[in-house]
């Protein structure tokens, strides 16, 4: 089995001993991340699973430059997140499509920020909308679209400016089960065509396994890395078919046995 981890060449994403602590309103110090280290190889699809509220989103927020680590270093292709801010695309769990912009204007946002010429912007947006099955909706306002369509507009917006690293924070969590599977397939199709580096946070274990090359399991708060699993499922994949592959069940069982105790620990933390 090829171990991308061991190759010394520049990692797309590197986390070295990252700790992130917050001071709460009543002056308590809470650690979200505790000494977290991992590398992601260029073109690799890595999923991070762990209990809700453990600190998975914090990991992505640090890489997007929205938060600074308290200790340790986070780098993107050898540079700080602030320096690499044009390389990163972030798909949030929430709806981030701007309601006051038409679909095409939304898809062009990142290109406007990068000062791309209007004509090229339009071309690129048209291409992305075509790819995401949104052709014909260029001039619609977001409120005229369904939740799944808005999610695709969000994804098109992120892909439009061609980020080399995709950060995805439970991107399909708010969708109904069928739409979610459709979107997972959509994502796989796009990823397999272009092989960007993806860091995908989810609490849906089957989703993590069916999409990723590698699954990182995080512990309850403060989150540490508990275990990493390589996913041995053939590519190209379909999100549904992957679940019926003979290797899926065993892997699911193993990861679940790691994840499960963490869920109960986190639940107790949340109750306290």
């Amino acid at each position: 089995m090829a171990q991308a981890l061991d190759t010394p060449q520049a990692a797309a994403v590197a986390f070295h001993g990252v700790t992130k602590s917050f001071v709460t309103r009543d002056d308590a110090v809470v650690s979200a991340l505790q000494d977290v280290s991992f590398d992601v190889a260029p073109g690799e699809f890595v999923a991070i699973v762990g209990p809700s509220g453990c600190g998975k989103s914090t990991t992505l927020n640090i890489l997007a430059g929205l938060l600074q680590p308290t200790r340790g270093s986070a780098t993107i292709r050898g540079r700080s997140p602030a320096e690499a801010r044009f390389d990163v695309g972030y798909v949030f769990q929430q709806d981030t499509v701007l309601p006051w912009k038409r679909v095409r204007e939304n898809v062009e946002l990142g290109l406007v920020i990068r000062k791309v010429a209007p004509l090229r912007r339009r071309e690129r947006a048209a291409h992305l909308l075509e790819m995401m099955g949104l052709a014909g909706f260029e001039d619609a306002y977001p409120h005229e679209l369904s939740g799944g369509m808005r999610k695709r507009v969000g994804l098109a917006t992120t892909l439009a400016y061609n980020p080399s690293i995709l950060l995805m924070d439970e991107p399909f969590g708010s969708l109904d089960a069928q739409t979610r599977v459709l979107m997972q397939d959509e994502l796989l199709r796009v990823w397999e065509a272009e092989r960007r580096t993806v860091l995908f946070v989810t609490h849906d274990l089957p989703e993590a396994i069916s999409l990723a090359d590698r699954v990182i399991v995080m512990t309850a708060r403060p989150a540490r890395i508990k275990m990493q699993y390589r996913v041995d499922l053939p590519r190209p994949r379909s999100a549904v078919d992957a679940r019926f592959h003979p290797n899926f069940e065993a892997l699911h069982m193993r990861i679940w046995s790691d994840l499960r105790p963490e869920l109960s620990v986190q639940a107790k933390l949340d109750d306290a």
Partner: protein
Amino acid sequence: MSVTTPTLPLEHSADDASLLRQVRAERRRESVRRLVDRVVLVSVLLGAWELVVRVGWVHTFFVSQPTRVIGDLYAVFATGYVLPHLGITLLEALSGLVIGTLGGMAVGFGAAISVRLSDALQPILVAFNSMPRIAIAPLFIIWLGFGPESKIALAVMVVFFVVFFNTFAGVRSVDPVLVNSIKAMGGSHLDVLRMVIVPFTVVWVFAALKTGISMALISAVVGEFVGATAGVGWIMVQANGVLNTTRLFSMMTLLAIVGALLFSAVRWLEDRTLRWRPSAQL
């Protein structure tokens, strides 16, 4: 397995068309009924007013009567007497509205974005806001004289705070995930401002503008009550001096009509500006 992309129906089938016709007819009937109800209600109220005076239950000296008020309104327009006064009152109210709105927006955005500025401004703003600002009118007359300037200043004072507080609240209620989303795309503070904060806050500014209109009009008229040489408020003070209730009622009616027209103008502008919203309320 085949995966089809869900799309919205773009064309209507024959069934859809007939359903559409039916719903449209229903909506039309409803709006006609609403209009009839309103006209009937207003007619009954005006009729009752006219009646109590004609029967002699209340003397016309105190409450005038609808027919006299309408007659007076016609007269002041036919002779052109009211026009320069109306022009001055409108000038005062609109200047105050525009200046107060621009100022309120500027300080509102500034304070919402700079924590330091909002912390520093807070006690002053709270003090001014809890003061009945219209009561500053006599001072403005002393400072700025009997002309339109004192009334404009009064309207600015009143409108500024409404717009300021709404702008401030609007900026503060922007969804942080939208801000983070623009930042994660590599957007600067300026990008966040023009792509998220300003377009979102415009909704709040329009809400303030709609109350601001009547407040500006009230300020202009009250300013004219306190001391003026022209304006609708000045006409009312003159009428009051000779106990001309009909004139008072006709000027109040005129102000109500002007207020309603200005309100519709802002509503129209709002609907045009905020097309992205699912549907304009009310």
